[in-house]
């Protein structure tokens, strides 16, 4: 498997994602420069966290127009796997790969903390090795993570089983207290209709080693490996 990690000039989790693939999964990974039109033969694309072009306007609003994103969108349309993490989720929404938008956190403050997620579906290339109801702990670190869409879209996502992760408390309940940013219906991550594009605000690439406190992000990458090698 070859993973392409997009480097926008303000990406700051691109190296983390690259090292996660190379060091933790022992798979091949390359950085894809935002000014290029070349996916370098990547089977999977990671849109990493950061502040793509500064994001002073709106997170991801400029990134969608970058040369590399045209190739990423084409890759996704061909059914190629794409995962957008944090800023990558925002960019995926701006680029139309996923519905809805990520707005300023309800607290109006940046939030950096571990959260608990509940896996809602295994019908995506990034959760097929997980189990529905499984709880995962991993960090969030964002100022604009309040997932928002109109009611019809939310209902459709629910009906089609495209809500992938929800913020939950220690007992697995999707409570308001467990919701770190005011996301509608506690949504932390969603998928496209084919289950090949997933976006989520939490950082699975920061939860791959016991030394760093959690290995719960591994299941996303193991799912991916299983999907690509299937």
């Amino acid at each position: 498997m070859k993973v392409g990690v997009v480097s926008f000039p303000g990406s700051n989790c691109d190296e983390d994602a690259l090292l996660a693939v190379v060091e933790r999964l022992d798979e091949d990974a390359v950085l894809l420069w935002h000014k290029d039109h070349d996916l370098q033969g990547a089977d999977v694309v990671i849109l990493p966290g950061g502040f793509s072009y500064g994001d002073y306007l709106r997170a991801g609003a400029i990134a969608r127009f970058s040369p590399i994103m045209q190739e990423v969108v084409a890759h996704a349309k061909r059914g190629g796997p794409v995962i957008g993490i944090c800023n990558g989720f925002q960019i995926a929404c701006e680029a139309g790969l996923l519905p809805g938008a990520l707005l300023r956190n309800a607290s109006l403050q940046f939030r950096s903390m571990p959260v608990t997620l509940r896996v809602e579906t295994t019908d995506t290339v990034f959760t097929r090795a997980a189990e529905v109801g499984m709880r995962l702990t991993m960090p969030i670190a964002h100022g604009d993570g309040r997932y928002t869409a109109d009611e019809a879209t939310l209902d459709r996502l629910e009906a089609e089983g495209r809500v992938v992760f929800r913020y939950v408390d220690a007992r697995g309940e999707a409570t308001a207290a467990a919701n770190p940013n005011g996301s509608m219906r506690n949504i932390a991550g969603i998928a496209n209709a084919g289950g090949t594009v997933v976006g989520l605000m939490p950082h699975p690439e920061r939860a791959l080693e016991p030394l760093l406190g959690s290995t719960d992000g591994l299941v996303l990458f193991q799912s991916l490996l299983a999907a690509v090698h299937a």
Partner: protein
Amino acid sequence: MTTGAVPRPGDPVITPALVAEHGLTADEYERLVRMLERTPTFTELGIISALWSEHCSYKHSRPVLKTLPTKAPWVLQGPGENAGVISIGDGLAVAFKIESHNHPSAVEPYQGAATGVGGILRDVFTMGARPIAMLNSLRFGSLETPRVRYLVDGVVKGIGDYGNCVGIPTVAGDVMFDAAYEGNPLVNAMCVGLLHEDELIRAKAEGVGNPVIAVGARTGRDGIHGASFASEDLSEENEAKRPRVQVGDPFTEKLLLEASLELIRSGHIVAIQDMGAAGLTSSSAEMAERGDVGVTIDTTKVPVREAGMTPYEILLSESQERMLVVAKKGRDAEVKAILAKWDLAAEVIGEVIAEPVYRVTEGDRVVAEFPGTRLVTDCPQYTPEAKESEAAIARRARDVHAIPPLAAEADPAWTLERLLQAPTIASKQWIHRQYDSTVRTNTVLGPGAADAAVLRIRGTKRALAVKTDCNGRYVFLDPRVGGRIAVAEAARNVACTGATPRAITNCLNFGNPKKPEVFFQFREAVFGMGDACRALETPVTGGNVSLYNENPQGAVYPTPTIGMVGVLEDAAHATRLTFTTPGDAIILLGENTDELGGSEYLAWVHGVVAGAPPACDLAGEKRLIDALLEAIRAGYVRSAHDCSEGGIAVALAECCMAERDRPTGADVDLSPWSALAPRALFFGEAQGRVIVSSANAESVLAVAKRHQVPARVIGTVTPASNGFSVRAGDVRLTAPVSKLAEAYHEALPRAMARAAAEKVTRDPALAGGTA
């Protein structure tokens, strides 16, 4: 003899009033005239005003700073560079520095704090190091004041937005609140970077004919005279000085960071420096001075944001995210290509010259010309009078044991709960959760998890521990002892995580040095730091001096903030502060005493800042650190936490509930010390104490004995449902753990929730001429 510089048409005439406005004394002006052998031009006056400001010249502090120890086999770069550098083994090194942004943050907290982060980041990556961690040491007035809540909110947001965007984890720091900082908050930012020893680059201009290149953001009219602003007392006129505060752009900083590291590794450049305080002027003068060469700069070549900027403005602008680079001759195209990749501008603006002169031209016209290459250190130096004030002596001599306890204190649980709510002691989670602490995936122990933050070093077994510390109250009551404690506590905190303390950087925040009592504080505190650095083998690798932290209400507490770096040989040794396992023994390393002076208890419960601060036995501290590290490395220690503000009762409570979702209880017996006054035993701040939990108490005691460190099993870790219980003879302190946790964790969020409801933008007392 230089005759080159001539006044520009339209320049103001040099008058005594203009000289005074530039902060130069009559003697300093005389010195300038002697140096030039003529009347300075307006541009030259501006340059000297910046370079001879306290902030750039260290004119009051340099002779005292020279007494600090700066050498050890592992120190690769001591003071005098953009940042200090130490070797950590395996060919790797760490660059680190702390710097203040107090004055700008007092006037404009968000931008002031944000640009402080930006500046210290640049100081570290210009050494060739990739920043891996940020820390902040913050001091504010009482949280009861709306203005203070506004400052806290703005400073925290500013720090967070900048560091989060650049993608450097903010992992540790220290925050204290005391009315002494009411008008003068302290905002000290520290950055730690990692490099290969052979990638170390210094900001030393060399090579006649080499081009001098301005890189990064364009130069605007913001921040002009920021360095001079930072070198005077705050006053009612400061609102009018808001334009002297710069505006930060973290996205450009991120580009600059990547481009600079690429430039350094390319081999095309010989030196690089941030255009920080006093901008182009100080960066060019300092680089020339270090290389003992001349330099010439043409201000018409500097990329500017707006037309019509004068050489004076271009030289003194403190626009952010700019660097000055000396490239190898003939490599300008390669340098520009690297910057173009990151969409940044680079323009050749000058040249290194053999002639020992600092020359600025505007096209063909020479607007400033100074002989010699030591423009910065040829400044006047002062050794002001130092005398401790009678008031300070009396304050220290006060018998604080005679202060009658409040009626409510009959139950020590009341006092403990109250102390846990003190903003200085309470959980800082409200602050930490606004900082990305896990980006770069190296954070082993982040904010609040241990006495210092721990970051693994990728590709090795090693890890770094980093922490800032300073109790200004102790320094205020006894500067020499307080200076010692600041270093000792930072070292103890780093050691509690399992790291060997290695070196410090410091940020010396004091009042007006021209006042004898302030200079006394400064001198004695630095001597105290030196004592501790020698005893603990943690030399000083650099830092920053911030004087004139005064306003009409008076000076801040003398606050020599210490930024400590330690090394863990094995990241697996990283040790938390919280108890982990019921049944473990609780061991006290060190000795309880009757000391109560300078305590948070006296300040928070009684509103009294008096008495002698606790004694600091440096040899004992060293033995404690050695014993602790041996026990941790042997695997005997499950948690370690030092006793600081609030004393042993607060420390034990924190061990139980600092991690709110993993609470434990404790059953502790301090009866061996029941002869001590209970409040001194529970809440006094005797130094040199660490609480350890262990499943192997005998081994810990044996290690302690070998190092001649007092040690005793004082209790047992219990399930949280058993509660928190400490007794000493007949005195009992018992409380439900959840109640202590609520006091500790809810205090700051509750106070700051009030800030959200308030719309305070400035202190009425500081509201000056601006509408």
